[in-house]
């Protein structure tokens, strides 16, 4: 079953939910859905007999800063029985990104969601244990965000902290990225 087949099953199970099929280069079919329908879609993906995605194998997020909507949360689902693989994506805004938790459906979601909260600051509503996972508890900021400082190229001046303007920071990020066609 390809992405269109999965989208059809979803459309039959959940009328009124917009499912967007996206092109893909690898084994996973890719679907985009709206974040408010996430939980019902995940539930249908897990419980419909013709899909039966009983494994949430991987969750991650990508930060497309400064684009808006800024974040994409990716769910990688596997059906062992039906030999299906699906990449389900949700777009989230940069301002107060949050989405429902999948911990009620798959136990593996617990730490995976905590890691995304830790690294990207995307909140999972209803998560039973919403703490940081990898960084220390008192850490400030979310390190995997694109606007989190990583390389500061500025001549240090003694006595003053290294402060970058937003423009300098963006220029630093793009400095070494070579676009060649």
């Amino acid at each position, binding site marked *: 079953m390809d992405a269109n087949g999965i989208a059809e099953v979803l459309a039959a199970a959940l009328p009124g939910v917009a499912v967007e099929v996206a092109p893909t280069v690898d084994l996973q079919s890719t679907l985009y859905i709206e974040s408010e329908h996430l939980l019902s879609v995940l539930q249908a993906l897990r419980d419909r007999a013709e899909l039966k995605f009983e494994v949430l194998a991987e969750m991650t997020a990508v930060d497309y800063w400064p684009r808006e909507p800024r974040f994409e949360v990716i769910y*990688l689902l596997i059906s062992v029985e039906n030999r299906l693989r699906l990449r389900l994506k949700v777009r989230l805004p940069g301002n107060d990104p949050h989405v429902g938790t999948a911990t009620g459906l798959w136990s593996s979601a617990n730490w995976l969601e905590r890691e995304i909260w830790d690294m990207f600051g995307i909140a999972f509503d209803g998560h039973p244990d919403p703490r940081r996972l990898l960084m220390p508890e008192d850490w400030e900021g979310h390190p995997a965000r694109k606007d989190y400082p990583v390389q500061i190229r500025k001549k240090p001046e003694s006595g003053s902290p290294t402060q970058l303007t937003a423009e300098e920071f963006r220029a630093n990020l793009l400095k070494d*990225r070579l676009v060649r066609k």
Partner: protein
Amino acid sequence: MPELRTETMTVNMGPQHPSTHGVLRLVLELDGETIRSASPTIGYLHTGIEKTAEQKKWQQVIPLVERMDYLSAQSNSMAYCMSVEKLLGLELPQRVKDIRILIAELQRINSHLVWLGTHGMEVGAVSVLFYCLRERELLLNLNERLAGFRFFPSYMRVGGLREDLPRGYLAEARQFLERLPGKMAEYEDLLTKNEIYIRRTKGVGAITREEALSYGLLGPIGRAAGIDYDVRKAYPYLGYETYDFKVPVRTEGDVYARYLLRLDEMRESIKICLQALERIAPVGEYAVADPRITPPPKDRVYTEMEALIQHFLIYSQGFTVPAGEAYVPVEGPRGEQGFTVVSDGTNRPMRVKSRAPSLLACQVLERLIVNGQIADVIAVIGSIDVVMGDVDR
């Protein structure tokens, strides 16, 4: 008569504990010797590899990802390279595929040997460790021959391998593979029918098939609990479908089943390696013939202007990868492993994220040890085979 009052005791196990395979901290609440609750704390080995990778060129990420799961370095780099190759749309020469299979299976044997040794040591059979490290030493020697580096050879490249196999490598690998079955019989003599070992492991840390699925355990832990899923069979890559091997599956789901299953996996890996040795031609291609990605051989760099320019471009600017996203699963020693690689069309990745089987295995730890005995914690941690470098990345 007043009722007896009992108190639970909270004990910190780790972060510095010889049996936590790195730096894992467990806060255990004990009622006598029974564990009432456990909360694992991770992150002590977090080094921000995924963030660092976003600043590097595509090729420079390879040594970084090898250091995530430090017991299966070459599986990591192979999974990463295959995701990037998928984005680039590269088709590898058959010889490269066969060499990669040989290296990946040797890496699986290597990782399982370390697992077996440390697990045996932790449940009291210290001699197993010495025997296993003896054989692993030979594998590290093979790595040294391959690339001059024993733990992290960085031999994989996007588009193939760094260079051709060194002279004598295949013969030495064959020698090792012929030696190993006899040695594995020695390990089995020490453990499989050992009364103490069986008592420490049978029925301990058991998990059902449904729980394993829910926890996303696709790998030896899941297969020991009855999930018949192996990426090499379900979604063959590199031509695994042409190799003759079986995927061992057991149903008990306890520590002892995981032990037997990993031993069976090592035997199957030996079979695959021997088949790969038959197929690898002594000379031939070791990378794709794409001048944008594969650097020219050194003798041409020193004698031809064009080759020097090509060499310089690849090592200074790198190559660009078309915008897109790819995840190519491979079967690593700890289960399905893969890298979500996102490119924005430049010469540096936009996001690299490892699917870490150890992270999910570490997550299930709490479920496996609660209501068990404190002595079983050690046996269970050993059996789920977590590598903290992979958990924290």
